[in-house]
């Protein structure tokens, strides 16, 4: 058990279950300190990026939204990448985070941190109920039930007077956090950026920790070979529920942030847009990449914020991107990158012998990413 888990994650990059041979091979490992230094540099550059790009209001808004949507997507990433299940119900946790926050701050005047705590608890409870109810369901029934749960959530939220009905709840107060010698009041997206950035970093650290954890290894094993995992004493059902329950508060955290960013909540949180967004954010860069959902969220948010074609056309863009990636390169951009790298490496040798034996074999064993040319 322990051996397997360290094998899977020795390079922080688990073995691919989708059958891409050598997708990870050849990555050079940096030494510990050098690697840490790289992360610190990435952190500093990441934090200063909106300022470096001019620091306008739209820049900060885009960056805050990227952070929020990335956190939202990381919740679903845990289930999709490591459990291999498609949760179509994560909009429920996202909306639960936002709605809980709006309910207690607007109606009862709660402070942001207790509201956050309650939002996380509500998400965990919802995930437990849904996870236990779907305990014995197979893969697509799981997806069906989670999807149904989200749509039921939508009908309940839109018709409940207590939750503001189809208008939602308005007037979420300013995000005010206790700070040294006073209070930190978030009035603009530029004020929100440090908080959103910090939470994003914490979530990525949590995901990195999860990938190295026993639970993460067990989840992967259950995904790749459930029978083998069971025969090795892994309780597959328990693992599934645990990972599902872990994923919910991550997405709910994003909902908490979003409630403060917009200062209102409405049933559109449960619309299929956010569902498609989080799935595409995971799949577009390639599943099981630590920074994948962040890159995906940045690409999608960038398009929506800076190059939008209008609501209905954006639906076509989002749906089209998801379908195209899955049909042409199921391993996402990373898959394309590896296919290109393989081809580039092969080129010097095959220039003289284009019909050489290894080429067709390599092409056949390569994933459908090769079909993108």
């Amino acid at each position, binding site marked *: 058990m322990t051996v397997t888990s360290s094998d899977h994650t020795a390079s922080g990059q688990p073995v691919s279950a989708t059958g891409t041979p050598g997708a990870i091979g050849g990555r050079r490992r940096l030494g510990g300190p050098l690697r840490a230094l790289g992360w610190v540099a990435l952190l500093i550059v990441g934090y200063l990026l909106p300022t470096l790009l001019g620091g306008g209001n739209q820049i900060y808004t885009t960056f805050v939204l990227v952070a929020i949507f990335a956190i939202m997507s990381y919740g679903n990433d845990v289930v999709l990448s490591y459990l291999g299940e498609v949760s179509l119900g994560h909009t429920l946790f996202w909306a639960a985070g936002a709605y809980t926050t709006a309910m207690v701050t607007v109606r009862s005047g709660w402070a942001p941190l207790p509201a956050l705590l309650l939002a996380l608890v509500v998400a965990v409870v919802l995930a437990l109920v849904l996870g236990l109810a779907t305990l014995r369901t197979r893969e697509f029934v799981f997806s*069906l039930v989670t999807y149904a749960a989200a749509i039921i959530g939508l009908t309940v939220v839109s018709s409940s007077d207590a939750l503001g009905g189809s208008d939602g709840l308005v007037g979420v107060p300013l995000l005010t956090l206790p700070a040294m010698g006073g209070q930190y009041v978030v009035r603009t997206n530029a004020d929100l950026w440090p908080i959103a950035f910090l939470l994003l970093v914490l979530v990525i650290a949590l995901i990195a920790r999860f990938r190295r954890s026993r639970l993460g290894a067990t989840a992967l094993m259950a995904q790749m070979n459930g029978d083998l995992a069971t025969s090795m004493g892994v309780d597959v059902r328990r693992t599934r529920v645990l990972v599902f329950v872990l994923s919910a508060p991550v997405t709910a955290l994003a909902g908490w942030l979003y409630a403060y960013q917009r200062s209102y909540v409405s049933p559109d949180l449960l619309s299929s847009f956010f569902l498609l967004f989080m799935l595409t954010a995971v799949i577009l860069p390639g599943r099981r990449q630590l920074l994948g959902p962040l890159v995906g969220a940045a690409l999608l948010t960038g398009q929506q914020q800076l190059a939008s074609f209008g609501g209905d056309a954006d639906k076509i863009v989002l749906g089209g991107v998801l379908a195209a990636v899955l*049909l042409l390169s199921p391993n996402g951009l990373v898959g394309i990158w590896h296919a290109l790298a393989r081809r580039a490496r092969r080129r010097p040798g095959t220039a003289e012998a284009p019909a050489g034996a290894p080429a067709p074999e390599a092409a056949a064993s390569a994933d459908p990413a090769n079909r993108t040319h």
Partner: protein
Amino acid sequence: MKLLAQLVNGLALGAGYALLAVGWTVLLSAARLVNFAHGQLYMVGAFVTWFVMAHLGVPYLLAAVIAVLVVAALGALMQLSMTRLTLDQNIVNLMLVTLAFGYLLQGGAALVFGGNPQVIDSPLQAHTVALSSARFTLQDVLIVVMAFVMYGGTVYVLGRTNLGRVVRGVAEDPKLAQLYGINAARVYLGVFVFSAASVALAGVVVAPRSPILTSIGFEEVIITFLVVVLGGIGNLKGGLVVGLGLGVFVALFGAYVSPAYAMAAAFAVLLVVLVVRPQGLGTR
């Protein structure tokens, strides 16, 4: 008597649910495929019917044929693009691709048909029949008749004919079926096109009961889930019984408790059933 009226209403509603689900039941039992764009195909079927009637002056019956053909062609395009995933039985990616297709269809339909609610002017909707205290339209009668015809026909074709044997063979073991010279890809294509055509038919006959919007389709998908999962996955007769029962449940719950939460209540029933009997209510 309110009860009789609601029972009749529930029967028509439930026959509509069953009609929505028949294509997916076949898709699941015969091909182990799922299609999250099912509800959007229903929406496209309804909107094509409305469009050719309202803009081209085509009569309802001909509009029905056109809508079924258009959606069948859409279904063929979808399945042709997914052939590789289907043969690999890559359910996770198939679910995601069809979900993406559904979203594409929704965005595309909104661009083509606009965002306003529309009404399909079916001539049968105008004829009201009174039976004691219950009133229903000829459209309701058509829905019930269609549901029984579709289920009867499908059960017969799958169970009694050579075509049915081929389809069941592929469902059982696609690789083995291919060894016997069956073109599995073509069978999958046929099943998917049937599924799309049947849900378009549901759109044609069920949608005239209420105004249509391009955003409809999601509720239709859960109804389909409920019918398919409660009926026992891939169990046609179970699907018909559950569809009708669900319609009566929703009608009664809507009339006596709360119409807004009828779907949520049906879903709660689904959760309870999944915990107690994950294989569904149907017995095989």
